[in-house]
């Protein structure tokens, strides 16, 4: 007796149970554990040395370019999935269409490569 509605209920149950399990475990641990905070214990751990400067430093732009590229490629990959599922059922034309799609994708990758977006600086 597998119905889509039942499956979605189960998926929702996964999220709810997971979201309840974490606080409950942490709560149980807090009941059992001692609680003696002090200034040194709460200090930021840097191997025994006093931290210098703010911890929330700025990160270099390289991460940002990768992230932009990732969004583009990830979405295009997801677009390929419905095509792959229907691939056997459809004729040879869908292959040619997809070759165009992949060629555009490959061109984008080549362009990013040429512009140096893929190099870690």
């Amino acid at each position: 007796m597998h119905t889509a509605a039942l499956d979605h209920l189960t998926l929702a149950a996964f999220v709810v149970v997971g979201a309840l399990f974490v606080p409950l475990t942490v709560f149980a641990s807090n009941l059992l554990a001692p609680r003696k905070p002090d200034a040194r214990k709460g200090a930021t751990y840097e191997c025994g040395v006093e931290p210098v400067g703010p911890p929330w430093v700025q990160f270099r732009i390289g991460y940002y370019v990768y992230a932009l590229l990732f969004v583009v490629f990830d979405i295009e990959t997801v677009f390929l999935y419905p095509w792959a599922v229907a691939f056997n059922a459809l004729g040879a034309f869908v292959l040619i269409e997809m070759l165009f799609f992949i060629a555009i994708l490959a061109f984008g990758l080549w362009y990013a490569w040429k512009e140096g977006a893929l190099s870690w600086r």
Partner: protein
Amino acid sequence: MSPLAASLLKVAACLGLMLANGVVMIWMLRKVLGHLHLRYGPLEAGPSGIFQTTMDVLKLLTKEDVTPNAADRALFYVAPLAVFVPSLAAYAALPFAPELRAVRLDAGLLYTFAALSLVPIGILMAGWASANKWSLIGGMRAAAQQIAYEVPLLLSVLPIVMLVGSADLGRIVEAQSGVWAGFLPRWFIFDPLLLPTFVVFAVAALIETNQTPFDMSEAESELVAGWATEYSAMKFGLLFLSEFSNQFIISALAVTLFFGGWLLPWVPESVSVALAPVTFLLKTYVGIFMLMWIRGTYPRVRIDTLMQLGWKRLIPISLALVVVMGVVIKALPALARVVG
């Protein structure tokens, strides 16, 4: 049984499996790494130390939960949740046996990848909230790794979806049933066209689960404990439970996609079906053993090398594999499943 009770029971079963996996895998990791280093690993608690992790969990429960003064408190509490929930949800679509899985999804493969890809958001959250430079570097590395390898991981399994015509994990396993030439199982790993696919998948999967030699986000010799540096007690325990659980998931996916899932070749179907969950778990644990073996053998690679490998090698290769598979299926259908 009411639908709600049935759903909760399924979730409870998956949660139980996840906790059991954590306990078994941590003990197994310490034993395997120990023997690889020519030492014994845990010995004291129980025969061969099998109760070591159980004792460790009890110890973690009674440890003080320290929140650093500088931390962003709200995010610091939410991060273990953001790591744990998707990790648990990833069990939902795994096919343990023909009729044994929490949900039957047509896009089960995509769903499992989606669940796994949420984990690094929690890791980034943990790294940022800790207000610690080690944690932040670890979190940023995890995010960078994730975005470099999500794409090849998704692309690498596309030829299998094309061949099977479904992204339902159960259908993918069923497509691998039977033997070829009387002895060779028709698992996708033995298909010459899919062998390169497996190589790409394996590399991307190692990186996706932050496994050595790609564990830059933890890197205990560089970053203390990476993004988990400031976590203690049960929050730390839950974070690492999720990490181990993700290794189980990725190994189970590899078994499902390439090693015939629950199928046991060379035996009558009734035996194979009866032993299905055992077969599945055993195969998965063989995969986990391989992960641990790799962990004990290879040194860590550098992060820039890692990023280049993903974008400049794996993505073009996996795109090419998709094209090759497409052309072969349409032009020479007989070649598409040589082993079959």
